[in-house]
């Protein structure tokens, strides 16, 4: 009896024990005192919490993170995001400053600490989840950092003991011009700003946007850019830790209490437009074939119409154009054989030989017909969402992919819209305003509503389509599907019931 008790070690604590020393030592930081409001999440929690707390805290944090991600998808500015998030954070994950004198200070911080680590467990499993988790966690950290009291923030940063070298006054004067140019003309007098220098690769985002002066591999970072450095530090630490967690996961010495909760959590962390499965895109009665693409293209969103026009004009598209367009066509239900036929007939200036050698493989890869195991099993890539098109791979010279609302100049965009039949001055002005405010999806939806004015009015009046089916479009394939259904309402025999059920499935 006694021996049994001695040999039993709480599995959670096993790692924290010094096996050579006192075997029954209490974890050193069982009850951490949280000095700062912000947390770099270096030390894992070791105190006991109940299962209910475990689940509830994680769900609360997840709510905040999901909302934050949604904000970034909608292209909200930092200020808008902060305003939008404030009530949500206050409700689910409040975090008071040290000076507030709140009695719940330590509990709040504990919840923040623990929930972070729980979600880390839940989202460490796959590369994709890790990347998203690290992205939103960094966003949350940035949001809090900005909202933090100046003095507390300073104390927190000092507590991190990051090795940043201060730029001397002489050096600052010597490079005054360069420093000011990098800061966009700021500061007017160089004495107003303090600078410190670090290896450039510690501030990659500042380097990427040329917001720092570089000299011999050192970046001269102005004091006000501290935020970006601290966030970069946070992200890199988190990324490393997630990597380690994922390696430790298979060895997680766990019974069946936590695993189901963790799986459940990670499954719920999906975005509305991240997965657009082909199963719910089926359009009964539609002739989706290579020779019909020209006709169907009337229902395409502007990005795809632009690709289609470029393809017809040049008989060619560059790599990302082909990728974006092939995936879209796959999404509307064009099968691999038809897609190959489509590309072959569209690239009419090259020989069969060249086509087979240089393009066939790529199209097949997109459909998951060739390539690595995971690509084949997953049936290739999923069609790009607006989010992806807007943020990844902006088009370069000679490329036609991307989102016209974002990547075209106002003048060219207007010309393109007029070409596809949007001539209403009111709409064009609206699009221009949306573009200036960087609300590209609003512009796209505006055009959609204009192009389907009558049909939308009809389904709204009939009550056949509810609000859910008419909400903002955030995926090109959704655009097509909705457009096609609206345009073919009369002609489609399987209208009404079956169709609206189909649409509902997406939510």
């Amino acid at each position, binding site marked *: 009896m006694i021996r049994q008790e001695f040999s039993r070690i709480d599995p959670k604590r096993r790692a924290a024990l010094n096996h050579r020393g006192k075997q029954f030592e209490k974890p050193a930081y069982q009850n951490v005192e949280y000095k700062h409001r912000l947390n770099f999440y270096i030390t894992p929690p070791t105190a006991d919490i109940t299962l209910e707390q475990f689940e509830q805290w994680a769900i609360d944090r997840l709510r905040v993170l999901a909302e934050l991600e949604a904000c970034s998808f909608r292209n909200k500015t930092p200020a808008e995001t902060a305003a939008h998030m404030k009530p949500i954070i206050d409700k689910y994950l409040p975090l008071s400053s040290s000076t507030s004198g709140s009695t719940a200070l330590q509990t709040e911080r504990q919840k923040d600490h623990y929930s972070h680590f729980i979600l880390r467990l839940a989202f460490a499993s796959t590369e994709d989840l890790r990347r998203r988790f690290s992205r939103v966690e960094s966003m949350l950290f940035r949001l809090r950092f900005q909202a933090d009291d100046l003095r507390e923030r300073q104390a927190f940063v000092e507590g991190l003991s990051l090795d940043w070298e201060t730029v001397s006054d002489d050096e600052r004067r010597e490079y005054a011009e360069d420093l000011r140019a990098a800061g966009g003309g700021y500061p007017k007098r160089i004495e107003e700003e303090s600078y410190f220098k670090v290896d450039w690769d510690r501030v990659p985002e500042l380097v990427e946007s040329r917001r720092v002066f570089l000299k*011999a591999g050192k970046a001269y970072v102005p004091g006000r850019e501290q935020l970006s450095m601290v966030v970069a530090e946070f992200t890199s630490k988190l990324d490393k830790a997630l990597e380690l967690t994922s390696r430790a996961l298979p060895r997680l010495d766990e019974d069946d209490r936590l695993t189901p909760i963790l799986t459940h959590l990670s499954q719920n962390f999906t975005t509305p437009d991240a997965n657009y499965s082909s199963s719910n895109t089926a359009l009964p009665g539609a002739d989706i074939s290579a020779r019909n693409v020209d006709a169907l293209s009337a229902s395409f969103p502007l990005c795809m119409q632009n690709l289609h026009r470029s393809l017809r004009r040049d008989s060619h598209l560059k790599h990302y154009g082909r990728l974006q367009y092939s995936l879209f066509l796959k999404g509307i239900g064009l099968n691999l054989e038809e897609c190959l036929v489509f590309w072959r007939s569209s690239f009419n200036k090259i020989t069969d030989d060249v086509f087979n050698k240089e393009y066939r493989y790529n199209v097949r890869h997109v459909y998951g017909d060739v390539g690595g195991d995971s690509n084949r099993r997953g049936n290739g890539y999923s069609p790009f969402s607006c989010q992806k098109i807007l943020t990844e791979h902006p088009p370069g*010279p000679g490329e036609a992919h991307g989102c*016209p609302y974002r990547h075209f100049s106002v003048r060219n965009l207007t010309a393109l819209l007029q070409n596809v039949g949007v001539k209403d001055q009111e709409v064009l002005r609206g699009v221009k305003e949306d573009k200036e405010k960087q609300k590209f999806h609003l512009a796209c939806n505006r055009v959609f509503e204009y192009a389907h004015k009558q049909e939308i009015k009809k389904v709204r009046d009939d009550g056949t389509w509810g609000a859910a089916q008419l909400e903002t479009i955030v995926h090109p394939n959704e655009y097509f599907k909705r457009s096609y259904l609206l345009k073919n309402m009369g002609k489609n025999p399987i209208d009404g019931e079956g169709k609206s059920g189909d649409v509902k499935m997406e939510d």
Partner: protein
Amino acid sequence: MPHSVSPENMATHEQPQDDMVAEAPAENGETQASENTFVADAEAEVENTQGDETMDHDMTMEDVGVQGDIVPEVALKVEIKSEVRLEDLFADVESDEEFPSSNALNIKTSSSPEAPSSPVPTGGSGSKPSDSDVMRSFYQRLFPWRHLFQWLNHSPTPSTDFGHREFAFTLQNDAYLRYQSFPTSDLLRKDVLRLMPSRFEIGPVYTTNPRDRKTLRKSSAFKPLAKEICFDIDLTDYDDIRTCCDRANICNKCWQFITMAIKVIDVALRDDFGFKHILWVYSGRRGAHAWVCDKKARHLDDQKRRAIAGYLEVIKGGAQSGKRVNVKRPLHTHVARSLEVLKSHFQTDILHDQDPWETDEKFDRLLQLLPDKTLNEALRKKWSSAPGRASTSKWADIDALAKSGVSKTLDAKALLEAKQDIVLEYTYPRLDIEVSKHLNHLLKSPFVVHPGTGRVCVPINTKDLNSFDPLEVPTVTDLLGEIDEWTAPEGEEVKAIQDWEKTSLKPYVEYFRSFVVGLMKDEKDVKVKREREENGDAMEF
């Protein structure tokens, strides 16, 4: 076909007349004998009733039916025979010309099988550099294997820097072979000679030997660790602004775009990022690659590579984006410095040589980029009335008209900035950014032969950048000829001389060697230092 048919016909033609055939059945029995005679009779009949020509025709048809298996074989043999004859003919004709010895023969022998296999002409004129014999000699005698090895290995003794490095071969039949790796340069050389790739590419160093990647328990354990940061500049990206050539063609005028690009990128990488070992390589046709080989550069992750790429990228957006240069004011040090470098090129290489705004629709593009409407109208009027006015004059007109005060609302600062942006748009390097962003991107190795042009991808010495002429870069056939032409200098020459030293490849190999030596020296220092540091750490523990 006439070759293949005639001997066949001869053979079958003889058969019925052959006594042996008629006699053979007699030994076996009567019935067969009668059958055979019947056949012979029937044929005799045909011979009688129809003309000679039709008979021949009939016979061949029959042949195909009866002896189908043999026909193609015979045909093949005949073809080969005829080819040999052709070759001999050519060799005779050529060998007394100025091309001496085996070299000319090499080209001819292999050019004939090449012809039927690819109906689409590959663009090479006359000699085919992808021919195996030419390529074999090149890889055997000229390719600087040892220097390539030291370049990638960073020390004379083989290490994982080389051993875990991915090589990818493009074979003659265009198959693409990835994840090849070799412990030493000798083994790489051996495999290249065995497979005779038309070119090969260099990828990253991986966590394990790329050949063993499938034996790992978890596929995620196989990851790229390090690779030089690469930049790819290709003249096709300049097609909307270069007027002298398009697509795959280049001349000395448009090569200036590459010269400018190298200047701008090279100085930024050295001064701003502090890199020292930057190797520029001519890509064989219409572009250049940069390999940044510093240890620090090799180990950067994708995010940091993206940061460098973004830092260097000034021209953004596609053909439809309108104004593509949108830089903040005051100009960042890098942009200001680039502008300073590019200004003189703009005057000579762009305005004078390219003459980009010659015609009406072309100068429309220029007017789009200028801010003041009234000024634009005045310029349009002036230029339309003088068709064919040179771009240099047009560029000068902008300032002249602006000064004359055509426009009351003219914002001089905005005009100056617009003009700076135009200079940048027409001269600033256009990088194929994807190559630089990813650690595991493969890039063609230096010193391989471009399959289309036959030119060797030689390193470009940035000290003599202005004198580099892509059209003067030796082709593989030139080089092999030079070996043959070479004669030992008069006097006592005992030292063995390598084949590349006999050719015009010599300066390039020597430059590469000095580059590699410099790299290895720095690498050694770093190693010693690191060991010391590690020891220091250990002491502290």
